[in-house]
């Protein structure tokens, strides 16, 4: 089922720009039908998933490497898919309103759909390699989306930063996946689930774990890799709302949750994941509270929320996983809504600076209601879903056997900041005193508030009907992570207990922090020198160093002299092979040369003589003619050994070379000997060494020559490929992939020659 939606999204991504030209303003609404349809069909399979029968579909791809196009939807992937497709509906609609009239809106839809397809694939993939492909595709589409306003330098830099950080993590993930494949012989997650202890007991467990963490932590913006996420706010707001809060950054969390049954449960897992999560939670919270830009406020609070979820996954108790899943839903709903609200405010007032915003309730009442609901959910007010989420988090933390006080206190701190951010973003701009920027603002088009409104209302309804949510979506997801059937009973009201008291405390302290926000900002201004030591500066320094080394390296290797290029290539090849060659020369003894006929000696003699003619030649034409004689002599040798195809090709190539040379010769300067005798001697030595090396190489291939190979081609070329000319059959059938590669390279080379020649003539003008 899911594969058709992925294909449809990719196809729509291809035609989106034309579709936009055709129906312009309605495009977002039309495109939104696709994720809506996926949401519908996902809801329709909920009963199956609840009974514990995951959806499984597999197509063969590269079966020799155990790579298949296999998809697997269980409770966990269903929940994530539902979030991605459900929120995607409103983002597509919202983008139409937010970027109305933008000349590249069609392209924007393309990128968004590409991302959506990638995300669906990532979440539904059963094969880890397939998942990796989609994982990388989300990084690439995120790059395109962050850099959408590519005329602005900070957009480009932010896009590159996100790509480099998540791309490096992606490479680590690939290494982890390969190790997993080596250990267990399969890449299918569903197969790994049947052998839970295998990876943990292998000696590669720790490397796998660390590499997986690098992948997950970079993607989900965990400290110290969190810095790319606030920078990514250079993207248009629909992107921030979708990729960088509600969906893509959750991919790392999905990965952790997905692999918990096969990698989790050990001390290493527990320590690293929960420590990183806690650190991120605090870093995000501290950074968030002092921001004044709506989007940066939300971005840092997203970092904090992601840390909270990672921490909960690291704790890995039934309670904490339940809390993680619920909070994941809560966060996606309110954060998506608040980002859309922030975008609408920016769109209407032209500013995102919270110190300039106020009194918008009079001009944007609908947005105010949506924002208020989302903010209440974010602060954890009953009866919204956010309240249940926060209660569960506290409950999970207080039930911990060890360190529960410490973990609980950090959690309360982070949640206090959450309350403050919720007030700053969702309440204050509307209810605070009237300020200047609200003058010309008015309520936006429905597309601008619909998404935020619906997501907020879902947050409310889900809180009221939490029992249904718990039974139908959260139990299957928690069961998938815990690898055992877990039934979840979500309740809104637990009575007055320690957890509830903590909630009350959180809300009041959060409000207190809100009133102290100006003082906190002043304090932060004094501490800004701390940023010098932060990960952003590590990133910049390592990027600069890499570029510097690349620059030096390129100057060294590509200095523009053809002579030194050839020298470098030859010397490098010699160094690379000589060691193993010199040690393994015994094969020379096994080689038996057949009888050599007089005419063969003759040809060899001719070749040798003309080699000297080439070297001693004092004119270019003479040299080329002598080279031609050598080429034709080699063609003759091909004829002696009954290889007509090779001989014909050799003769044709020689002929065309002469024609090419005739055109080139006019461009060349007068022939002269410019190099010093010393360097000529050096070149001669290297040339002789390389010639000897090539001769040895050919002899070596003779010694490992296997008659079964030519037998195979002799026997099968007619039976299987219906051709009697074995050479041609190899070229166009048995090894057609090589040929395809060769003609592609040749084409690229020809275009290169063309470009070089044209470039030169342009410079002359």
């Amino acid at each position: 089922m899911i594969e058709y939606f992925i294909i449809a999204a990719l196809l729509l991504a291809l035609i989106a720009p034309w579709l936009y030209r055709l129906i312009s303003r309605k495009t977002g609404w039309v495109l939104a039908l696709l994720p809506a349809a996926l949401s519908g069909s996902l809801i329709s399979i909920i009963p199956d998933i609840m009974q514990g029968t995951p959806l499984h579909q597999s197509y063969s791809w590269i079966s020799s490497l155990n790579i298949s196009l296999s998809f697997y939807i269980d409770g966990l992937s269903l929940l994530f898919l539902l979030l991605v497709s459900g929120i995607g509906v409103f983002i597509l609609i919202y983008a139409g309103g937010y970027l109305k009239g933008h000349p590249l809106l069609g392209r924007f839809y393309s990128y968004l759909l590409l991302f959506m397809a990638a995300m669906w694939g990532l979440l539904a993939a059963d094969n880890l390699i397939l998942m990796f492909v989609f994982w990388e595709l989300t990084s690439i589409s995120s790059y395109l989306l962050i850099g959408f306003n590519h005329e602005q330098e900070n957009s480009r830099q932010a896009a590159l930063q996100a790509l480099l950080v998540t791309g490096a993590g992606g490479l680590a993930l690939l290494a982890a996946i390969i190790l997993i494949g080596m250990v267990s012989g399969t890449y299918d997650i569903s197969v790994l689930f049947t052998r839970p202890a295998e990876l943990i007991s292998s000696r590669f467990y720790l490397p796998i774990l660390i590499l997986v963490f690098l992948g997950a932590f970079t993607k989900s913006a965990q400290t110290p890799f969190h810095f790319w996420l606030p920078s990514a706010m250079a993207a248009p707001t629909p992107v921030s709302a979708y990729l960088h809060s509600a969906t893509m950054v959750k991919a790392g969390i999905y990965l952790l949750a997905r692999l918990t049954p096969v990698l989790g449960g050990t001390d290493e897992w527990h320590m690293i994941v929960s420590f990183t999560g806690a650190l991120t939670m605090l870093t995000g919270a501290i950074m968030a509270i002092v921001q004044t830009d709506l989007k940066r406020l939300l971005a840092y609070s997203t970092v904090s929320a992601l840390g909270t979820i990672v921490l909960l996954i690291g704790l890995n108790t039934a309670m904490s996983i339940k809390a993680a899943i619920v909070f994941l839903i809560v966060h996606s709903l309110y954060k998506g809504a608040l980002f859309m609200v922030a975008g609408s405010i920016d769109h209407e007032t032209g500013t995102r600076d919270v110190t300039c915003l106020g009194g918008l309730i009079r001009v944007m009442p609908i947005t105010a209601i949506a924002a208020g609901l989302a903010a209440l959910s974010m602060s954890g007010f009953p009866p919204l879903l956010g309240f249940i989420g926060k209660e569960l988090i506290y409950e999970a933390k207080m039930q911990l056997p060890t360190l529960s006080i410490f973990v609980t206190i950090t959690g309360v701190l982070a949640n206090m900041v959450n309350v403050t951010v919720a007030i700053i973003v969702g309440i204050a701009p509307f209810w605070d005193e009237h300020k200047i920027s609200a003058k010309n603002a008015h309520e936006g088009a429905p597309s601008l508030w619909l998404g935020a409104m619906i997501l907020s209302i879902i947050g409310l309804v889900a809180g009221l009907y939490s029992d249904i949510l718990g039974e139908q979506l959260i139990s299957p997801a928690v069961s998938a992570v815990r690898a055992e059937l877990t039934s979840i009973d979500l309740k809104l009201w637990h009575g007055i207990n320690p957890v509830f008291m903590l909630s009350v405390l959180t809300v009041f302290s959060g409000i207190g922090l809100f009133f102290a926000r100006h003082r906190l900002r002043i304090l932060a201004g004094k501490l800004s020198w701390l940023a010098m030591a932060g990960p952003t500066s590590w990133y910049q320094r390592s990027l600069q160093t890499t570029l510097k080394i690349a620059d030096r390296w390129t100057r060294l290797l590509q200095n523009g002299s053809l002579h030194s290029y050839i020298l470098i290539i030859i010397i490098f090849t010699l160094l690379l092979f000589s060691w193993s060659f010199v040690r393994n020369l015994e094969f020379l003894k096994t080689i038996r040369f057949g009888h050599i006929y007089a005419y063969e000696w003759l040809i060899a003699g001719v070749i040798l003589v003309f080699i000297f003619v080439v070297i001693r030649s004092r004119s270019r034409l003479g040299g080329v003619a002598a080279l031609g004689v050598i080429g034709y002599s080699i063609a003759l040798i091909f004829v002696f050994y009954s290889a007509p195809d090779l001989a014909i090709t050799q003769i044709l190539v020689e002929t065309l070379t002469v024609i090419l040379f005739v055109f080139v010769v006019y461009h060349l300067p007068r022939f002269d000997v410019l190099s010093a005798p010393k360097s000529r001697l050096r070149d001669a030595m290297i040339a002789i060494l390389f010639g000897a090396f090539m001769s040895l190489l050919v002899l070596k291939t003779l010694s490992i020559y296997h008659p079964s190979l030519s037998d195979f081609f002799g026997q099968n070329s007619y039976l299987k490929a219906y051709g009697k000319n074995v050479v041609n059959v190899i070229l166009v059938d048995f090894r057609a992939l090589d040929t395809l590669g060769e003609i592609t390279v040749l084409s690229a080379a020809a275009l290169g020659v063309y470009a070089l020649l044209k470039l030169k003539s342009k410079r002359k003008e």
Partner: protein
Amino acid sequence: MVSVLLKAATRYIVPVQLLFSVYLLLRGHNLPGGGFIGGLIAAGAFSLYVIAYDASVARRKLRIRPQLLIIIGLLLSLISALLSVLFGKAAMTGLWDGSIPLHWLGLGSLKLGTPLLFDIGVYLVVIGITLLIIFTLEEES
């Protein structure tokens, strides 16, 4: 380098050479020949025009830009390689169907299949590449 003899001869040689190149292309599967060799011979034919006249005349005779030949050739090869996927087989599996009797050419019968299409792609790419370089070199000199 204006030679009336060469100009006159070129007009008669080129069609024969082109025909010969197609002959070599088609017989390649069973006898010496094939797309690469055929392509080189065809490129040689047009090079003759470049030598006898100049590149602009050769371009007129070719009628199609060499770049386009490269693109078409690559596409044909790629299509022939991927066609089998549509039939549920692994990519690059040869598909064969039907044949054209060419006994009167001394070719036996010409079997039709994706490898032939692939070879035609190679043929066009080789012509395109060679002529792109030769034309450009001549025009820049």
